[in-house]
């Protein structure tokens, strides 16, 4: 990655890596600098954090085996298209 400041589009693409802690130290800093001075990207990050927190709180037992099977089948079908 270059040392140029991130664009909003690049930031959106890097959000997952940021949460995973997979960005290099320099890229992490560039990511955070962008967040501090870009209210829309900051809002996006906060929404992602909220989504991850809420999804993480859903117990696995709430997904029935039938629903899980149907979901997996649907995903397989989607991949073949």
């Amino acid at each position, binding site marked *: 990655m270059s040392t140029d*400041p991130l664009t909003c589009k690049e930031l959106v693409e890097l959000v997952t890596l940021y949460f995973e*802690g997979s960005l290099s*130290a*320099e890229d*992490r*800093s*560039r990511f*955070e*600098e962008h*967040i*501090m*001075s*870009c*209210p829309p990207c*900051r809002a996006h990050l906060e929404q992602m*954090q909220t989504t991850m927190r809420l999804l993480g709180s859903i117990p696995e037992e709430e997904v029935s085996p039938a629903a899980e099977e149907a979901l997996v089948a649907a995903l397989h079908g989607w991949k073949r298209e």
Partner: protein
Amino acid sequence: MLAYAFLSEGAVEPLSGFAWPTGKEGEYGDWVAADAAPPEALRGYRARDLPYWLEEELWNIELDGRLAERPHLLIAERARLRGRIDTWSAELAWEFAAACARRVAVRAATALRTAGRAEAAASLEEAADLEELESAASAAAGGVAGTLAGYTADVCFYARDAGVPARGACVAAKMTAYALAGDVDDIDERTWQGAWLVDRLGLVTGSRPSPG
């Protein structure tokens, strides 16, 4: 070493959500080690890097252990808050945003005057605050001579649109560097911004170990 930390309301690190322990009535907060905080939450800024991280509260922070240098910030192995700097306020944040916008407005006025648009130039120079400046700059935008006036209007609009004064100030600082130099990291502009903040915040960088 001593450095500065911009935090959200309630001494919360804005990116990680980590709530710093604060001391009671003038006492220092407890030391926090890296294993007791989110990754890279134990961070501090040198005075020259303050314009990159503006947030609602400004604190003195003591960083200890091995320090990792990142672009415009330092990450520590442990750290503690040493007291809030009360001179940083919503009012000063708006003042800083306006000061940044005026840097663009000065150049815009020169371009307008050179093009024979003295009245438009004067309206930029006489604007009292961000709102007036945005209005004057919007009216003066257009044509080659009005390009910088357009940038001035953008700085004002997006700063005000940020809502929270400190975030608006951060937006204004970044956009001003871009408008004047085409580079959000422009050394001259960022140095000017850092010096403005040090002066108006009353930070005595010379007597501190190395935040300057």
